[in-house]
């Protein structure tokens, strides 16, 4: 019954909520703001008296905001949004940047950088999305760094794997010399702006980097009601001009510890099983996993075992190495094949050979990232020598 499934799913979604830390404090602040807004004339006096109970935490918050050393860190992992009011320094050691969050705005770490919004709830509604500050790949043709690299008329490399928005484009240079590129789209009253400055990436230990990393940018992405776009664009410009490179954006500086890669966020993964014909016979089965960094170029680590289990009649089949795992130990976006590939990629595979048993076997992925699952229409290798064992081995 779909109604029952729906009830269960909605229950699980609602129960998966982020932590409630600070919720009551936020309530008190909101109540105080609402009080000020609603009050007028003599009511204002009453409000001030009632508000004394909440004024102290608010005052303390403001005092903390004045601390120039106040820093908010993003570590490249997903989590519940916990907003903190500016002024503060938003530091993304994994992504290699830090920016100043001005007063009147508040910030929360995201897995790819920071999200910002006005501290005033009334003004928050002007944003269709919080302002995103993150790193992103930008093709050489548009990239300020690419424009400098290829300004002499030489051809930039072929287009990269990620596309920019097809909105009107502009480019220029801030007074201090930093080149920028921008797309501006208007859909009804909703303005979407992506604003980029180039942001170098230096591979750890001076290792050569994949070509695409030279095209990393620091990006501010805005989706805002058109009437408020001037103010938000002003914020974006302040962020881009105040941004400072750290860790992997500075040659010779140590990289921050890498978080685990997040599927479909910092890494795209695919897996497949294929029957390989080695001439007319024999045939072997290859189980393949491929990993590729996403446009956000968030440094992350792939460290886990990948395996396959072959089952016959409900039991593990007599295959040498059955259930074996290959240990993946790679970092993105550099990738374990950095010298061979222009992109941050990594891969692993297992090979199964010489199966002389029944063809009705069941195969299962053993895969902590994409999940354990049956392999549909399981391929089976050819029988080469019935006196020798069937073998599953890593490569």
């Amino acid at each position, binding site marked *: 019954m779909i109604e029952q499934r729906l009830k269960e799913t909605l229950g699980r979604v609602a129960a998966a909520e982020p932590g409630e830390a600070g919720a009551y404090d936020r309530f008190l602040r909101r109540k105080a703001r609402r009080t000020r807004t609603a009050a007028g004339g003599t009511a204002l006096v009453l409000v001030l008296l009632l508000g004394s109970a909440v004024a102290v935490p608010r005052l303390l918050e403001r005092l903390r905001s004045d601390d120039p050393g106040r820093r908010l860190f993003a570590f490249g992992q997903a989590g519940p*949004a916990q907003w903190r009011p500016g002024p503060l320094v938003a530091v993304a050691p994994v992504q290699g940047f830090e920016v100043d969050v001005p007063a009147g705005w508040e910030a929360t770490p995201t897995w790819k950088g920071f999200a910002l919004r006005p501290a005033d709830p009334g003004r928050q509604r002007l944003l269709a999305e919080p302002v995103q500050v993150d790193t992103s790949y930008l093709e050489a043709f548009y990239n300020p760094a690419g424009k400098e690299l290829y300004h002499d008329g030489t051809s930039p490399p072929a287009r990269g794997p990620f596309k920019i928005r097809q909105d009107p484009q502009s480019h220029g240079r801030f007074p201090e010399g930093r080149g920028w590129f921008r797309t501006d789209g208007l859909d*009804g009253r909703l303005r979407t702006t992506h604003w980029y400055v180039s942001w170098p990436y230096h591979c750890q230990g001076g290792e050569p980097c994949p070509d695409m990393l030279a095209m990393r940018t620091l990006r501010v992405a805005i989706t805002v009601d058109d009437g408020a776009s001037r103010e938000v664009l002003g914020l974006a410009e302040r962020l881009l001009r105040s941004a400072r490179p750290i860790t992997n954006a500075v040659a010779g500086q140590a990289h921050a510890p890498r978080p685990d890669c997040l599927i479909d966020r910092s890494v795209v993964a695919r897996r497949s099983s294929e029957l390989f014909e080695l001439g007319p016979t024999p045939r072997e089965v290859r189980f393949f996993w491929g990993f590729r960094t996403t446009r956000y170029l968030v440094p992350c680590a792939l460290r886990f075992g990948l395996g396959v289990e072959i089952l016959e009649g409900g039991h593990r089949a007599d295959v040498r190495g059955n259930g074996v795992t290959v240990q993946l130990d790679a970092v993105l976006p550099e990738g374990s094949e950095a010298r061979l590939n222009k992109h941050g990629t990594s891969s692993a595979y297992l090979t199964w050979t010489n199966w002389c048993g029944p063809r009705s076997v069941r195969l299962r992925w053993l895969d902590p990232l994409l999940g354990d699952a049956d392999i549909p229409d399981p391929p089976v290798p050819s029988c080469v020598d019935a006196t020798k064992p069937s073998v599953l081995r890593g490569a």
Partner: protein
Amino acid sequence: MVAGELQFREFFAAEFGRLRGLGYLLTSDWAQAEELAQDALVRTYWAWSRVRGHERPAAYARKVLVNRHRSLLRRAVLEARHARGSRVEEAYQPDLGEDGLVLWAAVRRLPARQRAVLVLRYHEDLPEAEVARLLRLPLGTVKSLTHRALARLRAELGSPALERHGRGTQT
């Protein structure tokens, strides 16, 4: 702190999570859900002297939240946001299993009124008449929205396109 304040604080601790969960089911956005829940609780606070005598003050807070969501939906910017779909990248992904993720993805694609009807009907366990009262819709409209939403979910759950929302897709 006076007794009413203490009582409200207990009420806040008991109801905030539930209200925020309801907000998330309606918006797919934890930040927006928090806004709705906080807003509903602030309004409930101001009416506390009147509301706390009710048999279920939580129902009052829920009504405020649903009303607030309904009025926000009318705002052009938020409508545009819903039309564009919710922010997948920053979503706090619940662990639902493959079937649950597919169903939740289908719910998120429903029009706002159909989705609200399903959430109130099947998550909040409200009778159709109560859903109609909360959403200020005729009872017949609620029945029709429920029927259409379930039919759409059934159709989507059976479609191969939905299966492609599974893992291993390309950016």
